[in-house]
């Protein structure tokens, strides 16, 4: 299991990349994850598909639907992730119910076995997080906390004990590409900094190398999902070269920030 902090070593800006497991098939996902870590992605988020992903925009919703239609299940996803020779930290991103249903202890035990360093579960906010954190901690798995532009007074309690990195949601709404950002991200970043030294990465809506660079300049890293999934949506199982090219350009933009 790779430490998440490794991605930020020496003050490096991190490029966090997301794809949905099983889109279009698990063997394609395995190849794409390997391409991601070889193309400069510093932290990899593997999406475990859910029937009703309420924090996602249409691009990732459709990826989840494609994956589930292909019959992907959690056991197969664990096996696929376990089989990857990991050079960077891997995280799972999913929703509360598949994890609860699988059993928290069983889920985090398998995470540890598969070398997955952390999880992001957007529908488990701070107030409800102790039930997963207490179990995850026992298996050495980090639960990533999220901060929204509207968190304001909540930042203090949400970030006080944060680990790994803090997922700062760039703007209101769901995941998906945006043309511009209305939130004063720098001021939210500073509020978090006043509470903790945990690195902060910005996500939701980042779709180009330029946007990624801008976000990485005012934080500790940029998170990108829909823009990468969009490439897979378009090219299916033949996205290898397109992914390499795009990811490399985003990585160099983030790393030059």
């Amino acid at each position, binding site marked *: 299991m790779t430490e998440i902090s490794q991605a930020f070593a020496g003050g490096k800006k991190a490029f966090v990349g997301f794809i949905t497991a099983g889109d279009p098939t698990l063997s394609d996902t395995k190849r794409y994850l390997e391409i991601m870590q070889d193309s400069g992605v510093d932290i990899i988020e593997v999406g475990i598909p859910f029937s*009703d992903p309420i924090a996602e925009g249409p691009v990732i*919703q459709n990826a989840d639907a494609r994956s589930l239609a292909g019959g992907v299940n959690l056991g197969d996803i664990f096996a696929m992730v376990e089989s990857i020779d990991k050079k960077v930290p891997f995280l799972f991103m999913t929703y509360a119910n598949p994890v*609860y249903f699988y059993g928290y*202890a*069983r889920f985090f035990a398998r995470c540890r076995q598969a070398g997955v360093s952390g999880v992001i579960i957007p529908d488990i906010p701070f107030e409800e997080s*102790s039930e997963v954190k207490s179990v995850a901690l026992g298996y050495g798995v980090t639960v990533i906390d999220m901060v*929204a532009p*509207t968190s304001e007074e*909540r930042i203090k309690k949400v970030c006080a004990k944060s680990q790994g990195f803090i997922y700062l949601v760039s703007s209101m709404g769901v995941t998906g590409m945006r043309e511009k950002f209305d939130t004063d991200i720098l001021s939210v970043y500073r509020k978090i900094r006043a509470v903790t030294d945990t690195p902060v990465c910005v996500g939701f809506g980042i779709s180009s190398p330029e946007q990624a660079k801008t976000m990485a300049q005012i934080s500790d890293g940029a998170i990108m999902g829909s823009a990468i999934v969009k490439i897979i949506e378009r090219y299916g199982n033949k996205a290898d070269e397109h992914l390499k090219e795009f990811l490399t350009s985003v990585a160099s933009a983030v790393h030059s920030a």
Partner: protein
Amino acid sequence: MCKIKICGITECSALPAINTALPDYAGFIMTAGFKRSVTEDFVRECAKVLDPRIKRVGVFVNDDARRIARLVKEGVINVVQLHGDEDGEYIKRLKNLCPVTVIKAVGVEGGRVLPYPEECDIVLLDATDKNARGGTGKRIEWRRYKFDKSFILAGGITDGNVREAIAAVGPWGVDSSGGLETDGKKDAEKIYRYVANVRECRHMDKESKKGRFGAFGGQYVPETLMSALEELEQAYKKYSADEQFNAELKYLLDEYAGRPSRLYFARNLTRFVGGCKIYLKREDLNHTGAHKINNALGQALLAKKMGKNRLIAETGAGQHGVATATAAALLGMECEIYMGEEDTKRQALNVYRMKLLGAKVHAVTSGTRTLKDAVNECMREWTNRIADTHYCLGSVMGPHPFPTIVRDFQAVISEEAREQILSKEGKLPAAVVACVGGGSNAIGAFYHFIGDKGVRLIGCEAAGRGIDTLQTAATVATGKPGIFHGMFSLFCQDSHGQIAPVYSISAGLDYPGIGPEHAYLHDIGRAEYVPVTDDEAVEAFGLLSRTEGIIPAIESAHAVSYALKVAKEYGADENIIVCLSGRGDKDVAAIARYKGEQIYD
């Protein structure tokens, strides 16, 4: 957190699963001659493989203390468990030979713990049997035992009953051996489930958290919505105690919506059934034709006070959408309704009604294109715009504080009904019967009767084509606990925790979940939940129309159908109340089609 012990390990093949599950203790029977006895060398081999975080417990029965001390000193075992007649002197001697944690097995007889030596560190409660030392596999009585020492509960614990055991006994730790075996061997899946189930007993912490009904409820939503929920909670706390707010709401309910609704004695239906008296709580006579207006007016008024002038809402059959659009029109607010595309076809008349009232209707094309997807879309839209927008949730579901707010606004149903039945009959009803999707009319009809223990509360779920088919929406009958749409409750889901597509002839009941307060009332046995099929509901739809001249909503027809059975169980001096949650005009065309007649709305 409750400590976890797995005992009676006899084969190396179990070790990888134990390492993955990571219990606190692994036990080995080290005195020869018992069913699961193993050798010192076997435990030495296991010590090399077992995760060092798992403490190895040597279990002994009247064995040589010097041998035990040697095994501890050699590092073969870390903890000693004694199952024989070892007394305080023995334990003192052992501790003198080597300082070690000692667990002493103690029997329970007649609900009382037998005497045990003070010198032990931890007590292990087990059923006693002189012929089967080292664990009998039998259960002791599960109840709270008074103890000044940490104690482990053993005997008959399995992966399936461990949560129940912890809830009943409240031990410091649990121990299982035979309960984790299949055909005499430790079963990896049972080990995972056992450990997971104990760790998840932290769910009992849930009960002390905000917005819980027992363990059910909570606030499982993205961080982007949390500030909006906090704002709503504070506003509701303020205005629900505000005299002027309550007076304004009462005025709207009485003068505009037509409250109080009638409690009507259905004489013909009663005669037809030949049981007790059947009363209908006529929510169908409310303005807009259903109970939904009670909640919509309440929330719209609350939103207005909060300075939010835009309402968004999900709707299934369209009744809540119409009610919200109506409240928005009355209070001069903007309104957008999300409705599954399937439902916009089934309930085309209500779509036009909403448009007529000035609302914008979005046909939701994601997922199964029904109510659950409309809720998803509404939540997504709310995260987009919370500053000026209130999500007027239509049922007793979703994240806290919605289940409480909606229940409070619907509780007017039982508040009136209780008074009405007492004045008409001079006694409480034998039962209150209501249909349940998310459960807002049911909780409204139940609420003021919950304290009347003699009144049966019966929720009628939509069974669709039957609970043994996949085409059902009966959550209590077919669902499992889960976390979805902001709450910990019961949900219809597949074998991987994906939310299952559900089906019912009624667009208002085909929701894959149930409100958390209903899950709680079911859990504690205060309310009964029964499945009613499409066919039964359609039958009751026709019957009530013919006997009483009242065309019920197909949702309410589910309650009518089951009420006929309930009425037969009681004599003529008793009575039951059926919540007639809505009127059936919207369903007439669909029922005609169901019966093979082609008519057009």
